[in-house]
């Protein structure tokens, strides 16, 4: 187990932490900008993966009506339903694994990103000392950069980034971003109980993360918001703004209206 932890730190967490320190020095010694910068860098690196994941989920979403038909057709034979569904996926070139495989590959990266932010903030004195063991002292450029930057300025507007937000603004932002994310990614469910579950998830996830934000360093909440916003933008531009446009009838500036979403635009073209 210690070997796995060591390998994890060496390959995932420490490179990210040092990149974070570098971004902090380059982005005017502003830790919020550094977090946003690192989130963008990681998003760019994982872009091909996330893009495939979004497309795959969208394709599966588009096939839902046909799957419902199959479910009706083979009502009592579950094996036949799954065989026919697989055949349908095959026919349309959809690999159901592509929905979750890229996510599994990304998970270590996101956890590493999360850990590096947590480590850099050093919310306890013990944690701050631990930072010394993670920095690239042997690379002169990195060493000079870190020496100039540390201690990091963890104050941003009303926030002390190593402590929770005292005014609860970030928890609200986290809930809002997670809710929008859920709205965009939610798949129309075939049966009512599944639909209820999707509905529950749409509220449960944002609220859970909102509660966690009440307790953790606000720097992490900044990362959640930044990451969520980037995810929403990527999803929106790839598959259309879907439920968001529906949920916000008057629209937000810059956001296409319901009738202008990609799906509808495609429909118009066909006509």
């Amino acid at each position, binding site marked *: 187990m210690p070997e796995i932890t060591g390998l994890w730190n060496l390959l995932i967490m420490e490179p990210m932490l040092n990149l974070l320190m570098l971004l902090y020095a380059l982005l005017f010694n502003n830790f919020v900008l550094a977090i946003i910068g690192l989130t963008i860098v990681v998003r760019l690196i994982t872009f091909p993966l996330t893009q495939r994941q979004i497309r795959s989920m969208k394709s599966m979403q588009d096939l839902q009506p046909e799957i419902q038909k199959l479910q009706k057709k083979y009502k009592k034979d579950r094996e036949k339903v799954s065989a026919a569904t697989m055949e349908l996926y095959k026919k349309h070139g959809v690999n159901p694994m592509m929905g979750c495989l890229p996510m599994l590959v990304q998970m270590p990266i996101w956890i590493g990103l999360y850990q590096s932010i947590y480590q850099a903030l050093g919310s306890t004195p013990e944690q701050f*000392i631990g930072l*010394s063991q993670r920095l690239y002292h042997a690379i002169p450029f990195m060493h000079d950069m870190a020496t100039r930057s540390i201690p990091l300025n963890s104050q941003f507007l009303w926030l002390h980034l190593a402590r929770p937000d005292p005014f609860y603004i970030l928890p609200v932002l986290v809930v809002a971003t997670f809710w929008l994310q859920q709205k965009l990614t939610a798949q129309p469910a075939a049966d009512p109980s599944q639909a209820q579950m999707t509905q529950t998830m749409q509220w449960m996830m944002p609220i859970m993360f909102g509660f966690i934000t009440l307790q953790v360093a606000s720097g992490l909440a900044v990362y959640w918001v930044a990451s969520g916003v980037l995810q929403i933008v990527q999803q929106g531009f790839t598959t259309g703004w879907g439920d968001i446009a529906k949920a916000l009838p008057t629209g937000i500036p810059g956001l296409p209206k319901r009738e202008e979403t990609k799906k509808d635009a495609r429909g118009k073209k066909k006509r």
Partner: protein
Amino acid sequence: MKETTTKKIRRVALWALLPLFLILLAGCGGGGVAMGWSAPVVEGDTLYVASKTGRLHTLDVNTQQQLWQFPLEQPLAGIYSTPVIGGEALFFGSYEIQTTAFLIFQNQDIQGRAYALDVTNGQRKWQFPMGSAEDTEPSMGTPALGEGIVYFTSSDHKVYALDLETGSKRWEYETGREIWGGPAWHNGTLYVGSADKNLYALDAASGQRKWAFAAGGAIYCTPHVAGDTIYFGSLDNRVYALNAENGEERWSFLTQNWVWAEPVLHEGLLYVASLDHFLYALDASNGTPRWQFDAGDMITAAPAVIEGVVYLTAGNAGVYALDAETGSQLWHYPEEGNLRVLSSPTVADGLVYVNADNGKLYALDAAAGQLRWELAPGEQE
């Protein structure tokens, strides 16, 4: 019917697993519990030790029975400051967490105070809030005693001079960033290092600045003054020797990681602990290295040098005794396994006392490194 039950189980599992996953995620950072790195202090037959649960305990060294503890009621979050005894009083700084709650909302505020206790019974003589009374900051450095004044440093960027008897403020001096190390008093001058990368020399009576020296990195180390030279480490990986009179640099020595602990001078050798895992013995006059010892983990605390032996604690590597002249290892505790220690060892009457991170106090034989006794302060009765 079967399908409905499965779906129900799935939903319940989802509800149960999601919070678990989030809690796990929150814990990924590697633990955020403050514990403290206060070193034990022996004065006569009494041993003073700060427990990892935020209390200061006083024990009889012969019987290991507790004499008193502070505070009696709610413990502090942690004690990083090593207590200092002057006359009938004991002084230390605290790291406290004030939790305010409204319905489900909780807010934690990290605070700190300077405390003066009666050494005989642990009764509070006075306390002084660092910063304003409403918004205080922790005091983690070991206080220094001067002429009728006790000096405290604080994370609120300031050094405070307080009346030894009453705790009333004589003066304060503000630096650019937090001060975690303790001050050092020498011949009417107070030396203090700040995370703003400067080492300050202040007039101990008035708080007027005499000079300041800009190091390459932040200073979290308590300076060590001997004769006309002041020694301190910095986060630029260097240890510096300055002329104590005017702050001119005499020499500096580069290690491979932060120099966090106070350097210690003993018979012409300066012992410098670095977070690069090495203890360096340098010629105090010019900084030339004589020997170095690889402790196997970061050395966060100053070593104790007594009668030709260096006693050293090193992160997870436990305790070492080294020959002060040659650096050769005399013994190591524990011989097998790990023992995490971030505080300095204390040597008295043939015993080495170590306040470990597992919450236990260890008494080791100074000559051979064998365990004489161990106890968890506050739980021995």
